[in-house]
């Protein structure tokens, strides 16, 4: 890999809730134009870390710089250059997708055509639909469209593929890869290791508020193999998901 420029740098981040320490001294960098994965079990502090970087939550201590802006003093500047997809967030009730995008355009002060945004995530047929009427995959695609309105330098996706069927999941991977290829840095959390392996350029494992490993998926796997690890079962050339996709077809249904 060529030398990388850090677009997010987190140094010694600590977050305490009363007597519970959710994040204990995290430090990592996200490079420009990569897909960076934060992995770890529930309650490990992934979402808390993301929300602090997104300026949605106060930190207890530590330093965070996002594209040269400090979260302490320049939260407003950071909001301008990031796009955020929250885990399980809803949208303004009773509005259709075009109206929701118009609302977000106003909130970001961006001049965008809602239909063009919907085309980017392949939802132009659903322009007049309400968010609630969308399928799981469509909801996630729409959420991603709202993160792109201000042409952000970085987007944050918190478990975007949770609860999706294999087709919708792969479809979303393609979209996320396209976004990265178009020049945007992507920070993503997920519980699916196959997803992280396929999608992420680098991953950090978070456990009890600390980073316990950070590297490319390839290197991390090699390190484990070199340490003498062996799978109990011989790896076949395909897995059950390949069978599923092969049987039910690649194209994504709504």
């Amino acid at each position, binding site marked *: *890999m060529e030398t990388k420029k850090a677009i997010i740098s987190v140094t010694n981040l600590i977050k305490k809730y009363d007597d519970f320490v959710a994040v204990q001294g995290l430090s990592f960098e996200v490079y420009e*134009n990569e897909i960076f994965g934060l992995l770890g079990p529930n309650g490990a502090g992934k979402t808390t870390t993301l929300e602090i970087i*997104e*300026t*949605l939550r106060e930190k207890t201590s530590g330093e965070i710089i996002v594209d040269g802006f400090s979260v302490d003093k320049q939260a*407003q*500047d950071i*909001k*301008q*250059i*990031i796009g*955020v997809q*929250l885990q*399980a*967030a*809803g*949208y*303004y*009730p*009773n*509005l259709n997708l075009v*109206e*929701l995008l*118009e*609302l*977000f*355009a*106003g*909130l*970001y*002060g*961006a*001049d965008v055509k809602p239909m*063009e945004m919907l085309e*980017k995530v392949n939802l132009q047929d659903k322009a007049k639909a309400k968010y609630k009427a969308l399928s799981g995959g469509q909801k996630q695609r729409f959420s991603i469209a*709202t993160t*792109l309105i*201000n*042409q*952000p*330098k970085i987007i944050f996706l918190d478990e975007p593929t949770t609860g999706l069927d294999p087709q919708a999941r792969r479809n979303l991977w393609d979209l996320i890869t*396209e*976004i990265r*290829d*178009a*020049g*945007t840095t992507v920070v993503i959390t997920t519980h699916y290791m196959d997803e992280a392996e*396929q999608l992420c*350029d680098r991953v950090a494992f978070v456990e009890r508020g600390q980073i316990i490993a950070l590297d490319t998926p390839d290197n991390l796997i090699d390190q484990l193999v070199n340490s003498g690890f062996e799978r109990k079962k011989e790896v076949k050339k395909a897995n059950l998901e390949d069978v599923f996709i092969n049987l039910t077809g690649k194209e994504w249904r709504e």
Partner: protein
Amino acid sequence: MNDRNSSSPLGSEGLNDRNSKSSLGAVGYSNTKATLALAKASFRSIMRSPSAVVFTLAFPLIFILVFGFLGGGGTHIDVGITPGSDMKNPVIGMLEKTGMIRLVKNKSKADYDKLLEKGNVDAMIDVHRKVNSVAYSVNVVYTSASMDKGNILKSVLNNLFYDKNLKPSVAEIKESTIHGREYKTIDFILPGQLGFSLLSTGVFGTAFVFLSLRQTLVIKRFFATPVKRSSIVIGEGIARIGFALLGALFIILIGHFFFSFTLVHGALTVVNMLLLAALGVIVFMGFGFIISGIAKNESMVPPISNIVTLPQFLLSGTFFSIEAFPTWLQPISRALPLTYLNDAMRKVAFEGLGLWDVKFQIMILLLWGIGIYAVAVKVFKWE
């Protein structure tokens, strides 16, 4: 995976067109634009929300319809004539002509006393020619059993005494300030229903919207954009006030054209009423902010809201004049903000007063507003 040179399927107008980045700089960001975008979204949402439309329009209109037909378009006042009263005087004649007053004649003093006590007769009138004079003396006895109708009779009598033909022949004039137009049921009911509509749209609407926006993380998502908190509140406020005023205008126009609701100065009166409506809904929205802060979930909103709205619905002169209530209850009525909004609305619509003339009522509403928002700032929750 790492081939960054692969052509983007999204084309040259890709996901990250940096050329227009400058328009997104902190300097170029417009809070006004964000506020208006929120107001527009909120207004669209309200217009599609069945409960908002029912509470603001259907509810008050049903009451207006019911009372509009019940009252037969007018109030009747039963006035007994004291035995021995001079019947051939112009006052009685004029009273008969107004059509609103039904004279109850030829009963004994004892009968009249009973009727008066029960409120079956609203007042007694006794007209006598003054000794050594061409003028008449008019003696009216009201009953506390029917104070509201007594008040109407007062204004009717005063109106009569200003009549040119009658004036020279009547020596004693009891009151001199009350306007004596034909006071119809609708003139009383409509401002009360309007006030209640503003109360429910302000309280229920605001409480539900902010609670649900908070619970579904819509507000959290907004916070990830550069929008200010004040823009969210103001945008929501603009939409709600706009919707409430549209509803108010609709109710006033239906009342005026279908039930002959009195608008003394026409369009000017409507404008004054709408200004009062705006003040009222702003004050009432404060209750909504408080409720959205203390309610833990959506099912807690209706009971808490009813604690605020029901007493005002019953005690603030929405259906009955508060003077008809027992005296121990009246101080409670006089403490409620809706009482003053209703009062100001009636004075503006029926008596044709200007906003400056109802400054006392406006002042009480403003005091309520200051108190409510002081609490709202403390208990309101963003997340």
